[in-house]
């Protein structure tokens, strides 16, 4: 078995090719090309393990994947920002096409009409979902989308305080704080009651709807409160809920963002996802990120192009609306294919399946002695259950039985667990969860 130790199936150059190219360049060895690197720092040692064949690589990754089996088998009642939803086969089939997968950001519109038109469709769909006027091509994820929304509200209002409703996801709040701290903006919490009187010079009121605990907020009231204070209403919402719940745009929200993951994107341990970002058209010039627009080519036929680029970092540099460059175009495409496949009736059905199953689960769990629903109001597909013992103990036992329990929120609600039910949970799953909880409550 004679084989060059540096042979790589991903690189075509043979030793003969290299010789010929070196001659054309006029140097005698490849290392001569690295002469600008100070000698003492050249060719450091690497402690990366030796190469694997494709077969060995598959085996290694399959073994690593197998170590995660308890996380992926069995029913899942975990949500809190990432959701196990049904993904039609069409989504992966389209996203696997090399023409989409291996293309760059469509800066050359003549050879990127596929990506550009898909972005235009994505912008259309996100606007339609949330009843908003304009959308961008997508942000990194739901959390950064919301953070950029708050920063955008600061630019629009030229104010530098951000209020957030205290039912916001803790991890979204952490990301918001990272982003706003950089601009010397300190977010402050308000409750549904205290939101009525926001501090002076508040740029925006940030609301998650449905909130972190799964419940709908009173957006009509909150919109009034923001308006009275001269602040913008920034809503982080859920695209599946938009299948049946009245969308934030219809309440007059100024900026609406969301995590796009539930729209046909694998959970993939937290990413890649896509942040949806929409706003009123009057704020268009302050939008962060890329935007595709429809125009015509020199023959007058309709064509698509990245537009309004003077907002962006590659043109405006330190005065750009954001530093975002590479975002999540492929994931945006997947969400677009998902929405096209599910369509008007399909998305409503998914939303209704989630709603009815979640409410069924809540109704049987709250009938179990020792368990109750501590929060009031209308929830969508997540709800908090107060347990008779610490959720950590309950979840550990559930995991042994092959069930992924809900998120332990006992730091916020005593013995609270945030349960999520989607269309993927069968009645048998839900009944099994309830039976296990009953056993654990004894």
């Amino acid at each position: 078995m004679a084989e060059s130790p540096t042979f790589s199936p991903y690189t075509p150059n043979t030793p003969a090719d290299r010789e010929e190219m070196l001659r054309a360049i006029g140097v005698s060895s490849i290392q001569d090309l690295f002469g600008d690197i100070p000698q003492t720092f050249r060719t450091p040692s690497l402690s990366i393990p030796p190469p694997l064949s494709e077969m060995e690589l598959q085996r290694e990754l399959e073994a690593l994947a197998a170590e995660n089996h308890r996380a992926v088998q069995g029913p899942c009642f975990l949500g809190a920002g990432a959701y196990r939803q049904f993904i039609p086969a069409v989504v992966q089939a389209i996203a696997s096409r090399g023409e989409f997968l291996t293309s760059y950001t469509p800066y050359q519109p003549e050879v990127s009409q596929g990506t550009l038109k898909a972005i235009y469709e994505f912008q259309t769909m996100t606007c339609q979902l949330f009843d908003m006027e304009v959308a961008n091509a997508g942000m990194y994820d739901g959390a950064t989308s919301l953070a950029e929304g708050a920063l955008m509200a600061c630019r629009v209002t030229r104010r530098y305080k951000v209020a957030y409703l205290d039912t916001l996801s803790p991890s979204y709040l952490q990301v918001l704080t990272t982003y706003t701290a950089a601009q010397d903006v300190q977010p402050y919490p308000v409750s549904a009651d205290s939101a009525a009187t926001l501090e002076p010079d508040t740029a925006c009121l940030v609301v998650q709807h449905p909130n972190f605990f799964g419940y709908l907020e009173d957006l009509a009231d909150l919109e009034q409160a923001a308006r009275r204070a001269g602040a913008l209403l920034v809503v982080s919402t859920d695209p599946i809920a938009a299948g049946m719940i009245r969308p934030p745009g219809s309440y007059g929200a100024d900026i609406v963002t969301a995590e796009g993951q539930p729209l046909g994107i694998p959970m993939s341990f937290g990413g890649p996802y896509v942040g949806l970002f929409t706003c009123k058209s009057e704020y268009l010039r302050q939008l962060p990120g890329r935007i595709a627009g429809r125009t015509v080519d020199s023959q007058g036929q309709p064509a698509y192009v990245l537009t309004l680029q003077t907002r962006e970092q590659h043109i405006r540099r330190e005065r750009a609306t954001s530093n975002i460059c590479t975002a999540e175009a492929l994931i945006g495409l997947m969400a677009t294919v998902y929405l096209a496949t599910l369509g008007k009736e399909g998305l409503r059905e998914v939303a209704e399946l989630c709603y009815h199953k979640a409410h069924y689960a809540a109704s049987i769990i709250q009938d179990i002695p020792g368990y109750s629903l501590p929060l009031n109001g209308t929830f969508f597909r997540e709800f908090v259950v107060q347990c008779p013992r610490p959720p950590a103990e309950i979840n550990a036992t559930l995991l042994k039985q092959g069930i992924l329990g809900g998120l332990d929120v006992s730091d916020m609600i005593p013995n609270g667990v945030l349960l999520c039910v989607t269309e993927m949970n069968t009645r048998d799953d839900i009944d099994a969860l309830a039976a296990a909880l009953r056993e654990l409550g004894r």
Partner: protein
Amino acid sequence: MKSVDSMTDAPDQKLLMEHSVPGRRGVRLPPLDVPEQPLPESSLLRDNLPLPELSQPEVVRYFTRLSQLNYSVDTHFYPLGSCTMKYNPKVNDQVASLPGMASIHPLAPEESSQGALKLMHRLQDYLSDISGMAATSLATMAGAQGELSGVLMIRAYHLERGQPQRRTMLIPDSAHGTNPASAAMGGFQVTSIPSDSHGNMDLTALKEVVNDDLAGIMLTVPSTLGLFENDIVEICDVVHRAGGLVYGDGANMNALLGQAKLGELGFDVMHINLHKTFSTPHGGGGPGSGPVCAGEWLAPYLPGPIVEDNGQEYQLTMPAKSIGKVSAFHGNFGVLVRAYAYIRALGGEGLRQVSEDAVLNANYLMAKLKDAYDLSYDRLCMHEVVLSASRQKKQGVRGLDIAKRLLDYGFHAPTMYFPLIVDEALMIEPTEAESKETLDAFIEAMLSIANEVAEDPDIVSHAPHTTPVSRLDEVRAARQPDLRWQPGR
């Protein structure tokens, strides 16, 4: 000449909403298997959901035909400078799609996701090794987010030392736009440093501007001119002596794998673009991943979470003085799996060979093209070569026209008009993944275009002629924004 087979068909002018026919469905869902529950009051429900109604074959054909309007690495040579459009191995997509990877909930108990955490821990170690740094965070979801995190770490470092006045970030005039944009987002004032006649940073200018307000410098290595800064060690020294820190933009790391470690050269913190150097697919503009690697003294400020091995198991933790979270969960895991697979497939020596072939290919292009096009800096380059079309501009044809004409020859355009300091820049990065035959065909096309400029400039200045659409009216796009389908239009 036809470069994209489907271009003989006129593109589908209709949008999804215009294809919609009431009653069509793209997928069937299971019936409700629990008793129907009472709905909320109707004021909370939406009355209209304006999404398209399409059957599955229509959806598939619509998007498949769209895909055929794209150039991509799988179909074409994509010599886009600074973007490292190399081959994306298919096995990487396959392993990232294993259910044990793709279906893990990010908040699943750590004991149930040890395989994923182990992979992340190893990748952290590999990237720390490659960069010569002490620790790595994988939480950042793109290069620009890595930059933002890096400058926030620098800011936190100075604040903790009681030096809040350190708010000046130095950035060379050749830098990517994300550098100044990230510095501004991080609360810094940007000062631009000029380049000298050899394409290096002007060291005298640097020494003149460093003072007690200096927070740090952001340097791309090799620079966006495709050159390795001759004075790199001294630049780091000057900045450090003034109390500043050195940030490395790793966008061009494809030149340096196993050739030099930024940590050893004197850099304090850097990011790496997995979607460039480590072969994860660009996806038409993401997903990316921009891990941040830091020296011992900055490691406590890394964005979190990072994965630690406590001897019993792998766990997610926040570094002691972390600048915080930058993503809802732990970064773009699916991208991390692909990069991990790439590193494992190549090994250390294979990675070194990647940079050698990338630099060899770029220099080969330079050697063959430098007679027909101008070179701003006549010296060996690293992984990319920056040509100038200033000679052609005098003949009435611009760099943009040459780039567009390349599309007719079946090549993606190079990066144009960047770096900003090169007149009519054409920045060409071949990567290691292209064969000599492809490079020769590209050279032939470039030489042929140079001839056309002399003999038939109109064919170049009106290019492309064979693509699905011709040049676009970008002014109209910006002046009359049409950014979505709307009913009745």
